[in-house]
């Protein structure tokens, strides 16, 4: 840092550091220039959480004497996906780019294999779940490293008081802080009854039916808990099956208890629904609760994050991992690998989790009982069950287990929510299924 010349970017960075409110300006650190590394990270939603990444990268850069620059890229309006698309098109860009769930598979050909990073990490931190493998691995090749920041489980975040009052369910008793859940009765049927009771009470569940991730993820988990797949693992279209029909019937009933404008909801709508005190339950990572803590503390005190209800085919929770990928056209791949190893050390992971207030979720089996989750509050222990510490759920992503390139389109075109919505709005079951079949045929395009 001593003999730097003040470039424009550095100037921006220096001023950025002085104003605590600003997190997203590019940060450049110059050491003795043993190579350069440019990084594109996801711009974190939890205020202040980018700082953990910046600090960890700088720590590493100082040790390795690498000059680094970080861009924080927002995922709003699919900006991070657009960045990845632009860089893949132009064959140039960041050395390391953080990508949402589906994109390592989409750019499999242009990503550097990272087996030499992943294999030691798994040995050290414990096994990763099936969804991480499904999304991050292709033909035995690790396409990307699961990133702690941004990865999330979108389980229910419930209003303790409203749920008790209208549905007669004590979520704290069902999911007690610090001990295994007693949730055998927490099934799709119970969930539906609770949704009805709360809707009658004037506090409907806030589950979106739009085209953004929150809506799609919830639909994905519900479909999977009925064993419903639009396209199976082999790539065959399996829309017209009883499992799908069953899931649709269920969704139709559920939709009648949801707010009337749920079809237009985006990822922020359910948060607003909870914070404004209008709803008894939403499906979201703890960011809604974190914001409520700041703006509507009386709501936050009544929030409890817990597990998903179980269906006939098991208990599935929507899981949305982020990845760090290294472009094969990148200039400094060795440094990139070394940094990714550093960011995946237990001490780094602990830091990510702490700074994000428990939002970030490591992919590794040994890392689900960190003290942040046990201690965050009020109410104390509200996040204990967020990372699924007792492994009672299958963490999965909507549209899996279809081949990733097809599943990705089912996911991004929100075929599941659209299908459910069509049926719920009066379209005949078979017509709606025929529509979905047509969509899936379209997704086979190469």
């Amino acid at each position, binding site marked *: 840092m001593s003999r730097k010349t003040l470039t424009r*970017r550095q100037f*921006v960075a220096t*001023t*950025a550091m002085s*104003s605590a*409110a*600003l997190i*997203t*300006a*590019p940060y450049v650190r110059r050491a003795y220039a043993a190579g350069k590394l440019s990084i*594109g990270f996801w*711009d974190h*939603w939890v*205020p202040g959480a980018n700082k953990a990444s910046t600090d960890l990268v700088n720590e590493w850069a100082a040790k390795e004497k690498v000059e680094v620059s970080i*861009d*924080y*890229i*927002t*995922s*709003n*309006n699919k*900006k991070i996906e*657009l*960045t990845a698309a*632009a*860089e893949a*098109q*132009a*064959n*140039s*860009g960041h050395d390391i780019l953080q990508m949402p769930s589906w994109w390592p598979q989409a750019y499999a050909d242009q990503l550097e294999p990272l087996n030499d990073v992943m294999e030691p990490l798994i040995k050290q931190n414990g096994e990763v779940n099936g969804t991480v493998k499904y999304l991050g691995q292709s033909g035995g090749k690790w396409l990307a490293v699961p990133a702690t920041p941004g990865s999330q489980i979108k389980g229910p975040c419930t209003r303790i008081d409203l749920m008790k009052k209208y549905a007669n369910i004590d979520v704290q008793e069902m999911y007690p802080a610090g001990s295994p859940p007693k949730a055998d009765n927490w099934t799709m049927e119970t969930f539906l009854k609770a949704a009805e009771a709360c809707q009658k009470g004037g506090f409907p569940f806030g589950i979106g039916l739009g085209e*953004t991730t929150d809506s799609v993820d919830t639909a994905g988990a519900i479909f999977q808990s009925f064993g419903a797949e639009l396209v199976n693992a082999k790539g065959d279209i399996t829309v017209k099956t009883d499992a799908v029909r069953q899931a649709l019937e269920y969704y139709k009933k559920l939709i009648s208890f949801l707010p009337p404008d749920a079809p237009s909801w*985006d*990822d*922020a709508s359910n*948060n*607003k629904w909870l*914070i*404004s*005190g209008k709803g008894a339950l939403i499906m*979201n*990572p703890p*960011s*809604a609760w974190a*914001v*409520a803590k*700041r*703006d*509507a503390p009386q709501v936050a005190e009544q929030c409890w994050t817990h597990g998903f209800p179980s269906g006939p085919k098991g208990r599935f929770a929507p899981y949305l991992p982020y990845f760090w990928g290294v472009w094969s056209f990148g200039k400094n791949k060795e440094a990139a690998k070394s940094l990714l190893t550093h960011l995946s050390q237990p001490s780094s992971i602990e830091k990510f989790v702490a700074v994000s207030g428990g939002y970030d979720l490591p992919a590794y089996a040994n890392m689900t009982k960190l003290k942040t989750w046990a201690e965050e509050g009020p109410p104390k222990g509200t996040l204990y069950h967020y990372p699924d510490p007792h492994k009672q759920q299958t963490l999965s992503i909507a549209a899996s287990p279809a081949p990733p390139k097809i599943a990705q389109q089912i996911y991004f075109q929100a075929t599941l929510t659209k299908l459910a919505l069509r049926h719920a709005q009066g379209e005949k079951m078979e017509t709606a299924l025929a529509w979905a079949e047509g969509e899936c045929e379209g997704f086979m395009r190469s």
Partner: protein
Amino acid sequence: MSMLAIDKGGPSRKVKYGSMSRDRTWALRWSYFFLVLFAAFSLIPPIYMLITSLKSSAEISAATNPWWVFHPTLSNYFELLTSNQFLRFFWNSAIVSIVVVIVTMLISIPAAFALARMKFWGSATLATGVFLTYLIPDSLLFIPLFKMLAVIQDFTGIALLNRWYVLLLIYPTLTVPFCTWIMIGYFASIPKELDEAAIIDGASWLQTLMRIFIPVALPGLIAATIFAFTVSWAQFLYPLVFTTSVDQFVLPVGITTTLIKGDVFNWGQIMTGALLGAAPPLIIYAFLMDYYIAGLTAGATKG
């Protein structure tokens, strides 16, 4: 100047037709009634922006009367105006718009001059063609342009995607055709004798343009400048497609993508950002309304 024309149709004539005056009063009352209605319709969104921008997040999330501010605060303004990120958007927008205005003028004034005054082979076709290119919308061009830029970048190694300066290249396609069109109209209305006399006196074409055309057509020039500025300031699709990093954003994209954080609740700031983003065109408009309107109606009044 346009005011003069408008004043002509003023109330003086009504005096003459006394028998109509009762009708007239009623017509006036109805006119005012509906104008108030329409003005309210026009002004609700900007006023609502202002109201929301003065509220704290806590007040907004409490869902009290949305049309009233109980605890006005300037904290949203303070936070945005001290955030380097927001200032960066503003700066990018300002630079892009100003440079684009200059480029537009440098291209369209000489071209309009040539098309209005120097009949040459193909000049009539070109003049019509210029206007027709305006009919090819940005929403048709953004995909091929995106791919073009990617190909050029891959080929030459010059970074074009995700750089704000690429907008300097692209925006003129939106401003130049219309500005050239306006300027052709204004230049054509200048009497030929003025420039012929200048040329006889030994002035070059360039001198004629600088000394005669530009000063005489100044109102049209101002209208075209305002037009070019507002179009560049408001453009949304191209920067949305071509820029992806936060430090490359211009205001409209910056506000819609970074202030609307998926999970974070900050509508006070979003409305503040939108209001601040709308401010430059609004200020220009407040001071130069007549030119603005002259620019808008340029093609129409002569047709």
